[in-house]
């Protein structure tokens, strides 16, 4: 069994047809002294036993904590159609659509996904997906180096610290001048950016809303960036684009983001979806697969992978990226999600997130000793300053059934007492109020 159909009879027949006497003979290129030193694996089990084992492990996780944790990875509702459709075997058991005639379903869906990403961000072209939001940002940085021929990158301290660490990791071995614009108590200043912006700068990387949830209009910064001959890279949170000024409208050159909020479950960190959009003029420098529309030999609309000359399987060491498998199925989920949500739905959803978060701010602000930061408008995530180290408070809240947010001390030394709180449309008023009551109890009982 083990999903292998061969009967003994068939194996015999096949060996005979091949002209060998045993299966071992087929492996004769492997010298006997290459035998595994060990191969100590458990013996197989039935799917029912394996399922029970994994069910037990799943039940050990407190996935049902009431979630106020975000940090770029959000607990949104996922309409049932998303999985019902992406769960069609013709999608999930297919490979990359190299053969257009038997892959039009995937190709058209990805073309639609690209279109939706462009519409969301107000950009001109988007690729077929990248691994996740963090690696997408790294790819955007590399792309800017290629476009500008420069080798300095400024990255705002308000960019997700996880992404910043990823950027560092990938560039360690390259000779890139990497400058981080410091933040002080969750605030970075334009002056700091301008101070470092020069004619060696390939790109300035910004995030909106930033890691603290703060909303900004980066148009003025981007203007200065362009004056310096550099590119502006924006990392965005797609759901917020139902409400917020678009990076395209701010004149960004490359936009990336984490697509998890577009219909993907949190799933302990993956599979997620990196998206990347840019201006048409940069398309040949863009990493990743791209689907284009064309006509077939009968003149019918047809979709194909295009601009493959940028890619590793053609260009090898000269490719714009090494990416091969991407996150196609996640992109499919995203376009299904955006389709069923629709034009007005995205607007309403963004509003719902905003309203809930504002309500949470007001509710938390009423607790003694809790200071809700209001220096900038926020979308669905915001910082509160607590009277003591937020790390222990978080532990107490977890005990009370909440996943209460991120203690910021881990990433920002001057913010030990701060907590980053996220409120999506999934949180009810009642849950928000209970959260506040419990927080108060933790602080003062």
């Amino acid at each position, binding site marked *: 069994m083990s999903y292998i159909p061969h009967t003994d009879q068939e194996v015999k027949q096949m060996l005979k047809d091949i002209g060998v006497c045993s299966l071992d003979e087929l492996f004769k290129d492997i010298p006997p002294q290459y035998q595994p030193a060990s191969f100590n694996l458990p013996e197989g089990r039935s799917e029912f036993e394996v399922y029970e084992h994994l069910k037990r492990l799943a039940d*050990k996780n407190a996935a049902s904590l009431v979630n106020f944790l975000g940090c770029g990875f959000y607990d949104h509702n996922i309409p049932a159609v998303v999985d019902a459709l992406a769960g069609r075997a013709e999608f999930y058991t297919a490979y990359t659509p190299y053969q257009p005639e038997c892959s039009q379903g995937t190709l058209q869906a990805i073309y639609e996904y690209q279109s939706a990403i462009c519409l969301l961000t107000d950009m001109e072209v988007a690729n077929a997906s990248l691994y996740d939001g963090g690696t997408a940002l790294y790819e955007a940085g590399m792309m800017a180096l290629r476009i500008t021929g420069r080798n300095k990158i400024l990255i705002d301290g308000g960019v997700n610290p996880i992404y910043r660490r990823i950027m560092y990791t990938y560039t360690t071995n390259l000779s890139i001048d990497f400058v981080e614009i410091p933040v002080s108590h969750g605030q970075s200043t334009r002056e700091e950016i301008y101070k470092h912006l020069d004619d060696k700068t390939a790109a300035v990387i910004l995030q909106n809303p930033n890691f603290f949830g703060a909303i900004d209009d980066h148009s003025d910064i981007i203007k200065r960036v362009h004056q310096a001959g550099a590119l502006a890279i924006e990392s965005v949170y797609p759901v917020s684009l139902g409400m917020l000024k678009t990076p395209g409208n701010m004149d960004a050159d490359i936009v990336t983001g984490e697509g998890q909020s577009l219909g993907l479950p949190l799933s302990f960190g*993956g599979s997620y979806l990196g998206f990347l959009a840019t201006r048409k003029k940069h398309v040949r420098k863009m990493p990743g697969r791209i689907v284009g529309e064309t006509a077939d030999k009968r003149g019918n609309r047809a979709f194909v992978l295009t601009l493959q000359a940028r890619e590793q399987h*053609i260009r090898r060491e000269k490719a714009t990226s090494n990416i091969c498998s991407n996150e196609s199925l996640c992109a499919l989920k995203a376009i299904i999600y955006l389709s069923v949500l629709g034009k007005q739905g995205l607007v309403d959803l963004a509003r719902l997130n905003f309203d809930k978060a504002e309500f949470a701010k007001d509710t938390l602000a009423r607790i003694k000793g809790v200071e809700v930061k209001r220096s900038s408008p926020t979308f669905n995530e915001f910082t509160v300053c607590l009277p003591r180290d937020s790390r222990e408070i978080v532990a107490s809240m977890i005990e009370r059934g909440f996943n209460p947010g991120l203690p910021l001390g881990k990433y920002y030394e001057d913010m030990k007492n701060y907590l980053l709180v996220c409120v999506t449309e999934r949180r009810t008023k009642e849950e928000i109020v209970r959260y506040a009551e419990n927080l108060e109890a933790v602080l003062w009982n």
Partner: protein
Amino acid sequence: MELIFEESVRGRKGLRLPKCDVPQAKDISGRYKREKPAQLPEVSELDVVRHFTRLSRMNFSVDTHFYPLGSCTMKYNPKFTENIAKLTGFSQLHPLLPQLLLGGMLTQGALEVLYNVERLLVEITGMTEVTTEPLAGAHGELTGMMLIAAYHRDKGSRKKYVIVPDSSHGTNPASAAIAGYQTISIPTDKNGVMDFKEYKNKLNSEVAGLMLTCPNTVGIFNSQIKEICSLAHRNDALVYYDGANLNAILGKVRPGDIGFDIVHLNLHKTFATPHGSGGPGSGPVGVRKDLTQFLPVPKVIKRPDGTYALEENRQKSIGRIASFYGNFDVLLKTYAYILLLGKTGLIEVSEKAVLNANYIAVKLKKYYDLAYDRICMHECVFSATRQLANGVHALDIAKALIDRGFHPPTIYFPLIVKEAMMIEPTESESKHSLDRFIAAMRGIAELSQNNPEVVKSAPLNTAVSRPDETKAARELNLRWIA
């Protein structure tokens, strides 16, 4: 077919959102706000269902068609693993929870999965430690290149070159280049393996590493691997194992035992997780003992008391290569698959995968030229040179196969075989299924002889036929415009 955008009707809505149960908040200033809503589709849920259901039906897939796409290991993806990934105890778990105080204890099940997967992959590869973080094979390669760099950096050197055979997959040289290395390409000898003399010649002290696929991309296991690795080591170059073809050798040989220093696996190939029309994949990387210090963080560890925790600080770690712990749902499915098959099952996988490939090779070699006429491993590579004499390209044969209900073999790769047709049947296919494919291939071979024009006009039974790729690249149309 119409685009979902073209099905829009102004004002139509698809989804009902929860009612707002809090007061409407004061609006933010207009300068922060979007001017016009994004022109997303305005369609009903049924529109969406019909649209994507119909699209799905335009695909070939493993569940509907034999899919012998070489180098991709399109094996059967067990259905029960899908259910495991949907268990809410996993699917609704926030990845940052274990990084909070107390959160680790509330994610023991997920951490145990990661730990166990790692241990299983360690045993399967013969390496010392594995990171589950890389999100696909190429991502694993890049991670591997960074590990190589970290190793040399740690020794105070900064070498310049990475060697790749010319038969290597495109991601290999690309990954090396992106990590900051220049690549040296080594030709393939007439037996289908890396030319040993050339390799020896090119090897020098500036070579940081060597990337090998094994069996390689023409399906051949290089019996000199150990010598190749020793030679590299003598030059303090590390040897990287591209595990895309691990399906051929499970339980037969382990990269860690024969001299490889770093290994990536493609879980979406060898371990039966679905390819998802091109992803998500998962490309865990294993290393030999002295390289474990460089592995990316966070890493799951098992504490003496039997609980699991995240190690976030590993001093010499290369850092973070992805947001979290890898494509967790893919790792879950891999874990389930390995537990189901077990030791015997995994060995059987390789035996039957190799059996199937050789069966096809033997049955078709009278009709098509084998690139290397010898016993192969999990895949065999033909060249359509004989057919080309009649003007029939590998591409035409591919299209003719589509008409006959088969997904074509890989034809764009390997680049070293002219008019390549790289056939990887996998162990999942029955003799009956192979025989049907063989009959179709023979039929096409005959037709190429007798009536090549018919082959060149394929496919006829598909919604689209031979899309114009030049037009696609010249008159770029990459998105819908309102």
